[in-house]
């Protein structure tokens, strides 16, 4: 189930043209929240979308509007639900959004390896 959600979120992330860093942070936030809180099956998508919202607020200089996020989920949730979930996640994770993601490490390794663009694409495909 997580796999399906993440696949879908990657598509959403791509559609909004957000930064790479945002994608990895979103998945980290999602995993951290899910590992701490038991949720209902029909809330899974809500948690995923809110993780995307938070990650892009922290990382990007632009974030998708709540309305757009709701419409992309086929109007399954309301604005209040998304904003409520935002507060819940932040509270649960104690505002610690600065967790290291695989992306940061990969950047460092690639720099150390003096990689070319072919290696970079392969590396980012693998993580």
């Amino acid at each position, binding site marked *: 189930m997580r796999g399906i959600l993440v696949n879908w979120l990657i598509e959403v992330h791509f559609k909004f043209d957000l*930064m*790479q*860093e945002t994608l990895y942070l979103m998945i980290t936030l999602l995993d951290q929240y899910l590992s701490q809180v038991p949720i209902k099956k029909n809330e899974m998508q809500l948690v995923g979308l809110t993780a995307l*919202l*938070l990650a892009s*607020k*922290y*990382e*990007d*200089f632009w*974030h998708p*509007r*709540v*309305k757009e996020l709701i419409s992309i989920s086929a109007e399954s949730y309301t*604005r209040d639900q*998304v*904003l409520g979930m*935002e*507060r819940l996640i*932040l*509270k649960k994770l*104690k*505002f*610690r*959004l*600065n967790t290291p993601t695989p*992306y*940061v490490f990969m*950047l*460092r390794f*690639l*720099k150390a390896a003096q990689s070319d*663009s072919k290696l*970079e694409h392969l590396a980012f495909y693998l993580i």
Partner: protein
Amino acid sequence: MFSGREVEWDASNRIWSWEKNIVYKGKCKDTGEDVAVKQIPYDSSKGKFEGIHPNLIREVTILRRLSPHQYIVQFHNTFCVNDNKRPLWNIVFEYLSCTLKQLIKQKLDPSNVKRLIYQILSGVAHCHSHSVIHRNLNSESILFEENSRRIKIAGFGLSRSCSIPFGVEEKFLKSYSPGVEAADISYQPPEFLLLSENYSLSSDMWSVGCIFAEMARGDVLFEANSCSVSQLSEIFSVLGTPTEADWAGVTSYIGWEEELEALDYNFTSKDLTLEALKAKVPALDVDGMDLLSQMLTYNPSERITAKKALDHAYFKNLDKTEL
């Protein structure tokens, strides 16, 4: 909401405000301790709430990581209240009554300047060791605690944490600059004003240089101008117009305009630049001037780092046990 500490404040006791963000002086109900409460309304677009403001998320995340530290303002907690159905987020900090700007107005003697700039550099080095760019260092975002005679860096609303700068994605680098337009223009480094993407921790060091000079001369080094071109010409009139030799690529940045080229502030040698700067800050000794000129270096990659600055000869005779 997060640590359960009850805080009360009086709306008439406003200490600072900027756009919709307001800071009140408050009190902790349990301990009676004075606190500062910063209120930030929900982010909204076209009348619809967009949730918690990105700047608040960044500020709290960064402060959680940086404090406690002796030169960083102490962050207590954050909670939400509803004011007529408008959710307001509150960040609670320790209360400090005096800003560095107020302190500078009372005139600082050279030994105090040395002590304070050392403290500021220690605080900035702490931020930088956690990959946090402050982006809004100025004499009002640095507070002063009278009892311990220590400065505390505050105002992290525009800060960002940055991972390793990496040249592949143009977009990645660009994303670091939006938002800084709101920072105080007098302290902005030339790479901001020129809209360069060459943007990293060293940008804060320019601002520290401006603060250092301000403390030594008792007044702002570069007066604030209304636009970036006039701000740049103000800087050039003191430090000379940068050439490609000083800073490769400077004339090809988006913010570089022909108007700037026409300004004839070409100092032929480094000594002449030092003299012009010296005229602005006569109170500094030779070592101090050397440190200042290394902070106000045009090329960001040649600018001194906070950590290196702490080892500069200027601090040789500073008693570091009494900081």
